[in-house]
């Protein structure tokens, strides 16, 4: 029992980070039809910005985190849009897929070249106490992960539904042409989505790195999980991405504990295929929203 609880709780904590990556992924897809194959690297990189600030500039952690966030938003949000995505329009098809794939190699190799190939320890954002829930150990970090990602979903949903900007972003996502006519500055709205995505990626990076460590190749695993979470949950739903993330996190652990360890990686993939074929709009998603 305690074992079951243990793996479920840990799965939730890990899954919540997949969710953060997946949410940005979903937003980008909705508002800019950009499927970002470099999303994993987007989660890998910000941790290194922080490490640079810590070890090269010798800043305190809080300042380093802010620096990391800011740099991420500029590099992975602004530059990504201006330098890679924007010039490619209207070819948001195969060329963009290829470009983002190339970008992921670029970021990976770049990081390795300029910070080194070795995994780096990343300072914990929280004291490392663990408390025990019915015999299951839960670290403060786990709780932080969960609460943050939940908070993000609530905040984002409120932002998108309650604020004018939010509604404009949604309008842009649903029908750019009409939004334009209604006087929405669609270009800017799209830019906002890119910035939000970068910020979310940075957040995910800061949350996962204390446990997962900072390494140039982290994106390979994280990226796949982000895709799967986004699609399983529902490509046109923010809370869908959350559900997807948590689901993948938990299922992965449950498979490993009770079914098979050597095929643990297979389950999320099978789930992905099944969902795409039987519910292309995801478990939580609704059939309207973007045609795929």
């Amino acid at each position: 029992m305690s074992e079951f609880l243990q793996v479920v709780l840990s799965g939730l904590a890990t899954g919540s980070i997949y969710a953060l990556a997946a949410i940005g992924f979903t937003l980008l897809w909705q508002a800019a039809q950009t499927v970002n194959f470099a999303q994993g690297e987007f989660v890998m990189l910000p941790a290194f910005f922080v490490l640079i600030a810590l070890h090269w500039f010798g800043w305190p952690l809080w300042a380093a985190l802010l620096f990391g966030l800011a740099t991420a938003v500029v590099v992975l949000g602004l530059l990504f849009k201006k330098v890679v995505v924007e010039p490619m329009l209207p070819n948001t098809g195969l060329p963009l897929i290829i470009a983002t794939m190339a970008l992921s190699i670029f970021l990976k190799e770049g990081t390795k070249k300029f910070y080194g190939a070795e995994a780096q320890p990343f300072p914990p954002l929280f004291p490392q106490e663990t408390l025990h829930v019915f015999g299951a150990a839960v670290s403060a970090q786990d709780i932080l992960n969960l609460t943050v990602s939940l908070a993000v979903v609530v905040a984002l949903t409120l932002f998108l539904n309650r604020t004018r900007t939010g509604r404009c972003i949604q309008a842009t996502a649903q029908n750019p042409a009409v939004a334009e006519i209604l006087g929405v500055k669609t270009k800017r709205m799209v830019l906002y989505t890119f910035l939000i995505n970068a910020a979310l990626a940075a957040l995910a990076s800061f949350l996962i790195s204390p446990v997962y460590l900072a390494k140039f190749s982290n994106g390979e695993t994280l990226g796949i999980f982000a895709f799967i979470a986004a699609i399983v949950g529902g490509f046109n739903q923010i809370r869908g991405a959350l559900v997807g993330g948590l689901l993948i996190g938990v299922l992965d652990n449950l498979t490993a504990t009770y079914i098979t360890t050597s095929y643990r990686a297979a389950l999320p993939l099978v789930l992905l295929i099944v969902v795409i074929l039987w519910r292309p709009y995801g478990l939580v998603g609704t059939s309207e929203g973007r045609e795929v």
Partner: protein
Amino acid sequence: MRATLRPVLLLVGLAVLIVAPLGESNYVIYLLCSWLIFSIAAIGLNLTLGYAGQISLAQASFMGIGAYSTAILTLAGWPWVVGMLLGVFLCFIVGLALGFPALRVKGHFLAFVTLAFNTLVFLVSRNEEWLTGGTYGLSNMPRPSLFGFSTDNQTHFYYFTVLVFLVSAALMYGIVRSPWGRAFKALRENPIRAESLGVDTRWLTLIAFAIGSAYAGIAGALVSPLVQYIDPGSFALVHSLRILLMVVVGGAGFFFGPMLGAVIVILLPEALRFTEGYYLIIYSAAVIALMVFCPSGLIGIWGRLRDRLGRKPETRADMQAGAQL
């Protein structure tokens, strides 16, 4: 002029293929072989992606299926041809099956399904040790001998590869200029219109996957005697991406695109090796630039130049229509 020039140039190309390995080191010949082999796989993907417009990120896993079948059979003492045929057959069937998702979803979603499939194949080939040798893979596969003419010598094997390459390419050329090729393009350009003109788009989608995969099978059947070692990692997702890169960089939907692409993807890193740790960085940056400035690939650049020189650049009327809808 055109009519006469073309066969001449083809002959020149053929001649280059024949003289290329002469006096070269084993390493260069090895590179040429892998260029030819990956070209075959890319030619296949080009049919699925370039002509029929169905994206697939699983081409490497089909190379794997071909390679493993060939390896297992040849190690069991069967002739290479048998292993190759079995591999190609399996790829055709599995490819057909992988085509079904394409009937339901397109674009990115199809990319994800095939991506997942590729990783699943990797897991199976790693875990089913009894069949595939697990993580250690299979090694020391014998090289084929043609009518008692052994290909153990690197150069001999090269010519053997050239032969297989030419036959495969010729067959594909036949396909793409047959009415099938025209129907594939129609499917890519406008499936609904194609369907309304009596083109059975469902069947066409499946067959596009099947044939494309079968080509990967041929490539795989050549990989195992060339490298004489295969392991699950040799057919991981990253290799599927490489093949995709070949097709797109070369120019999807152009017959010679994938071969040109393979030259770039396999030989450019070699040329950039002197930059040491930087070559992957430069390489990936170059790809991004290409996609930004010429999404239709290198051959696209050529076409663009021709338009620049020849006739005036045209505006895509279907884009205008798009604006009206």
